[in-house]
Structures are given as C-alpha cells and as structure tokens.
C-alpha cells in the first residue's frame, strides 16, 4: 500500500511524544536508603526536594551521606535523572529546613580531609521553588 512521505515525520513526532508522555509509567528510583536507626513512626513526613548536585547514583549516595548525622531522618529515595530526593523524616525530631541545611553543608572528602562547599543546593521543596538553579 502506498504511503505518503509526511507519515515519516508524523510517526517520529507521535512516537517521541508517546515516549515522553509514557515515561511516568516507568518511574523508579536510582537509590533507596533506609537509615540505620530509623525507628518507625506513624507521623513520618516526606519532603520532596529537587537538589542541584544530585546528578547520578554516586552523587545521590554522597547527598544521602550528608543526612547520616541528622537525627530523625528515616529514609531517602533518589531519582537522579530528575535531581530529586524524597526524604522521609520524623517531624518530632527534625524538619525540612534542617534537612535542607544538612544537605547544603560542606561535604567532607575522607581521602583528603578537605571540605567541598556548595556541592548541593536545594532548589525546590515540596513543589515550591526556593532558589534558582544557578544561585
């Protein structure tokens, strides 16, 4: 059966749009970390953060390590492709601003003992923009 040439760009556009639109059906994390002393609590809350600096599993792991010392953080789920961290915490022991502060704190490089500044910056918290990407 003869086909018009315009069918090619139409198929290209339709398939690309379907791919982008259908991506929400395939959502999965890059990393899931449950903190060692995460005692279960009925009131746990989750802060959804977009964090500049979370680019891959490695950088997500390092960001998660920033929260190790913070009491009350229960779980962290990272979606590296979207620079997103979902941090579940006990609101009786910590808060979203405290988590943000811990994430944005200087990062210790164990090998050299040096601190790296500005590695992570929370640019969005629970859907609300709180800083520009390049601030």
């Amino acid at each position, binding site marked *: *059966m*003869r*086909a*018009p*040439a*315009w*069918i*090619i*760009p139409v*198929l*290209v556009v339709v*398939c*690309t749009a*379907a*791919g*982008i639109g*259908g*991506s*929400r*059906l*395939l*959502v*999965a*994390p*890059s*990393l*899931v970390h449950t903190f060692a002393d995460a005692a279960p609590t009925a009131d746990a809350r989750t802060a959804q953060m*977009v964090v*500049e600096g979370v*680019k*891959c*599993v*490695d950088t997500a792991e390092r960001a998660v390590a920033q929260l190790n010392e913070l009491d009350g953080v229960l779980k962290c789920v990272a*979606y*590296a*492709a*979207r*620079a997103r961290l979902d941090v579940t915490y006990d609101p009786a022991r910590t808060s979203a601003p405290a988590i943000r502060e811990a994430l944005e704190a200087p990062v210790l490089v164990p090998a050299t003992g040096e601190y790296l500044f500005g590695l992570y910056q929370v*640019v969005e918290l629970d859907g609300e923009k709180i800083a520009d*990407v*390049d601030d």
Partner: protein
Amino acid sequence: MKRLRLIFQLSIVAAAAFAGVRYALGKSLVSVETYCPFGGLETAWSFFTRRRFSCAAGETNLALFIALIVLTILARKAFCGWVCPAGALFEWEAKLARRVFKRRDFSGVWPVPAKVDRALKIGLRIAVLGLVLVATWKTGELVFRGYDPYYIVFSAHGHDVKAWSYLVLAALLGLGLVMPMAWCKYLCPLGAALWPASIAGRLRLARNEHHCTGCGACDKNCPQDLPVSRVKELTSGECTLCLECTAACPTPQALELRWSAVPRPKGKR
C-alpha cells in the same frame, strides 16, 4: 520533505547544544542525557531486574527507548535520519566531504566490499553494543559517555569527557571523511540495537521497474550508500527513510514509499 527533515535535524541539534551549554553553566538541571534513548537501553537491565535506574539514567530514557523500538518497527531507522543529532552531524560531514572532494557518491575513498560491509555492520556494531551493555550493567555507570560522539559534542565538556574523548571524536570525524557515516554504519551501538526492528520495519521504499530508467541517481545520493537502484523493495535495516533518494530521482513514481504488510522477501539487501 528534504527541507522539513533539515528543519527537524537543525532544531534538534540546536536544542541539544542549548541544553548542554545551559546544564554545563549550571542554569538547568536537564542534561543532554535526559532525552537519550540509548541511556534507556543501558539502564534496562537494572530497571527490569532491580527496579532501579543506573547512574544518571531515568524513566524518560527508558520510555524513549521503548518508543524508539515502536518507531523503528513502523518507520525503520527514521530516528537516525530525522532525530539523532550525532547522525545529523555525521551526515552533514559526509555531504560536505562529498562536495569538497567532488565524489560521485557516498562510498568514500575505499568502497567497502558488500560482504565486508555486512560483516562490519553486524559483527562490529554488535560487539560494540555488547561491550557497552556488559560494562554498564557490571559497573552501574554509563561508561560509554566518554566515547559517545553525541555526548562529547553536546554535553559541553560534561562529566566523563576527558582529553582522550576529543581524540576519539577527532578520529571518528577523520574516519567519516574517508568512510562516510562510518560511526553510524559500523560503530553506533544504538544502530546495532535498532537493526533487528529496522529489518522488520513496515515503511519501505519500493522501486517501480516500469518507471525506473536505471540512472543510479538514487544510489549516488543515499548517505547510507545503499543499492537502491538494484532492488525492487528496499528492506535493508540501514535505511533511515531520509528520502534523499526520492528527492534525487528524476523520474516521478520510480521510487515510492510503501506500507508493507507482507513478510520480508528473502535475499534482499
């Protein structure tokens, strides 16, 4: 159609370059990897076995890869001819080289014998694909980044692009001057992954022997160097449906696009 395809290619190249520079300058969190379907294949193993994405890959990569397979079953390697920014760059290089060196076609300095060409297209590309996938699945890292011409060019010196990456790029561009589209034809792992679906592709070009004068203009203008004038129906898994052949054909109706519902006849290239 030629103009429309050029508009597609230019827009996508410009969008990729823009995204790469913005990400490199820290103005955006969307990198050039976000929309790369090959990232979807690289992370597929991890997704289906552990429900985790590898390295920087995510759901958009995987969904675009699945959509790309569907597109390829319908319209062969239209992605390569209409969308892929690396494909566009190598095609433009091949066209430039053809004009500068006054070549009659895209066979390059050393036309590759058909058997060798086929062996390289299948064997070498599959070897590259296998190597990349095994390395990615073993390390959990997108190890191909530093060798990927798309990433090297558009990431604006992104993560994993080292000095040797530019040597790889220069070598590929050099190779492309003497062997047009060498990357796409013999090395691209995404091309290898799409090849089986492309062979089964439903949209194909057919040559009407009653109208065809045998002038060979189609062969000379095919960037993939396919023997259009020697087959009745073009079933090659390499056709990108760029339609350069139909644009070059001086005889109306000699080449037409067909929606093929029949299984692929044997013995066609």
